[in-house]
């Protein structure tokens, strides 16, 4: 499974370049060429990171983030020129997490993307240790036992990733459904129970607590 990055950039060539590069580095890129498209994508898909150009058609990058921040705290990185760096200050106030100055190098972009993603798991490392020999790779979204990949379904990995982002926090069924099932799919609590069961069998029974009629909690 891959981390999903929303790319909002209206210049076609630059957009394609960044997309190709991020795909190459193992990320899934959701494209948006104006803020309306981006709003739609955010609404329909579960995005892990947003890369936002400031000067885009319809709402500009800041206005877009301001709108989005009402419903989600998905990390956001602005791509901006020095001319608009003053505005970035405003950007931080409305909830951007980082910015990158144009012209930039892909190497720099990758460093920032990686560090932002790790940040959402509250770690500096690529892999999070869950148990003595079980690690979760935040880049690839894969679970490893003694460096051997453990075969898990996409939704199971998504669920684990969600738990790792919010350790010790009670996650309601609603919150879990929102992340696991994208817009249009019918969530099923039966399937969710199966995923929980599978995860428990891998990382240990006590790691996921059931809070009756409310949801689950991952114990760190």
């Amino acid at each position, binding site marked *: 499974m891959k981390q999903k990055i929303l790319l909002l950039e209206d*210049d076609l060539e630059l957009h394609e370049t960044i997309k*190709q590069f991020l795909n190459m580095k193992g990320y899934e890129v959701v494209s948006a060429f104006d803020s309306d498209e981006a709003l739609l994508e955010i609404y329909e898909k579960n995005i892990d990171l947003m890369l936002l150009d400031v000067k885009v058609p319809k709402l500009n990058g800041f206005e877009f983030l301001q709108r989005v921040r009402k419903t989600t705290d998905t990390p956001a990185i602005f791509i901006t020129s020095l*001319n608009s760096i*003053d505005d970035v200050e405003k950007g931080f106030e409305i909830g951007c997490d980082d910015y990158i100055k*144009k012209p930039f190098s892909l190497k720099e972009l990758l460093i920032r993307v990686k560090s932002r993603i790790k940040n959402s798991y509250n770690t500096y490392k690529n892999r999070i240790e869950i148990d003595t020999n079980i690690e979760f790779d935040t880049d690839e979204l894969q679970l490893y036992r003694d460096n051997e990949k453990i075969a898990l379904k996409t939704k199971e990995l998504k669920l684990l990733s969600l738990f790792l982002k919010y350790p010790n926090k009670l996650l309601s069924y609603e919150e879990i459904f929102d992340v696991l099932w994208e817009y249009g799919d019918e969530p099923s609590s039966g399937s969710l129970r199966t995923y929980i069961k599978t995860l428990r069998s891998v990382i240990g029974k006590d790691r996921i607590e059931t809070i009756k009629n409310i949801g689950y909690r991952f114990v760190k």
Partner: protein
Amino acid sequence: MSSSEKRSLVRFLSIYLISSFVLFALSSSIFYDFSKKHLLEQQRKSLEFEASKLFSTLRKLHQSNSKELYYPNSKFYKTAIYDIDKNYIFGSFEKAPKLKDIDFSNKVYVLQSVEPYYLGAAYILVVKDIDFSSINKLKKNIFLFMFVSGLLFALLGYFLGRLFIAPMRENVQMLNKFIQDTTHELNTPISTILTNIEMMEELQKCKDASVELKRVKIASRTLSYIYDNITYLSLNHNYHKDIQSLNISSFLEERVEYFQVFIDNKHLKLSKDISSDIFKMIDKNDAQRVIDNLLSNAIKYNKLGGFLRISLTDKSLTISNTSDNIPREKLSKIVERFQRANSSEGGFGIGLDIVNSVCKSYDFTLFIDSTENSVKVEILW
């Protein structure tokens, strides 16, 4: 208002105000002289009237032969009668001065000859202190007029000045806006070029055209560097600075690596002496402008196969390179905007200006020295 606009306005105002002041002062002084004469003449006229009164009194006395000699006195003026030899006969003077002994400064007087000599008097003298109150009033009025008109003209001049520099101001603003828009539009294509070169290298797509790719890379990095300089200048250094502790050592290494392709291209002999983990409180953009401009200059104005020495210590950053000797008088001007040591070589002449202004804003000292065949730039921090 920009400093050049202020300068233009001040120049215009001073020329305008000084010339109108001179004109006003001249006409006022002519007017003053004229009015003063007129006022004195008036005072003299009243004395003449008194003199004629005295004359008629004298005649009456002379004709009446009366025993009683009555002499008209007044507290406003002094009178006297003199004989033909200008000796004092009688009058309201306390002492009896001879005519030639009287001091007439600050006084108006009338000296009338008496014909025939009644009672032996040949002259009648009427003297009065000048009445300065009317003259002072005149002076006061003139000064008041000068002051008010000066104020009005200054105000008028200011508005006229603003009016005159308005087209210039518009032009400058338009040009600035144009530069900002241009740089902003350049932004995306430059990013696209740079990122795609990176992609080509990463994917090793241009194995057969590595030389060509290198040239494109150099050209696009030059473009990017020029772009950065222009944006920095057009913002006039007043964007929000994020001053934080920056690892200059690793940042410098990173920038040298960025310019490595330029260095290789000119076959320069690079020697680095970079102390590790040196931190400075500086905005990253500012640091990059200084380092990039110094490196770029040291490479650009170098000779093929020349040397490039970079040294970083806790106290200073020194970059020296092969170069023709730069004359001493040019060294001091080299840091000014649009100034180049050798105008036949390319460049805008904004690089060192940026370095200089960054140094000034952080209180760093910038030294540039040139010998027979090298140039050394040193920043003490």
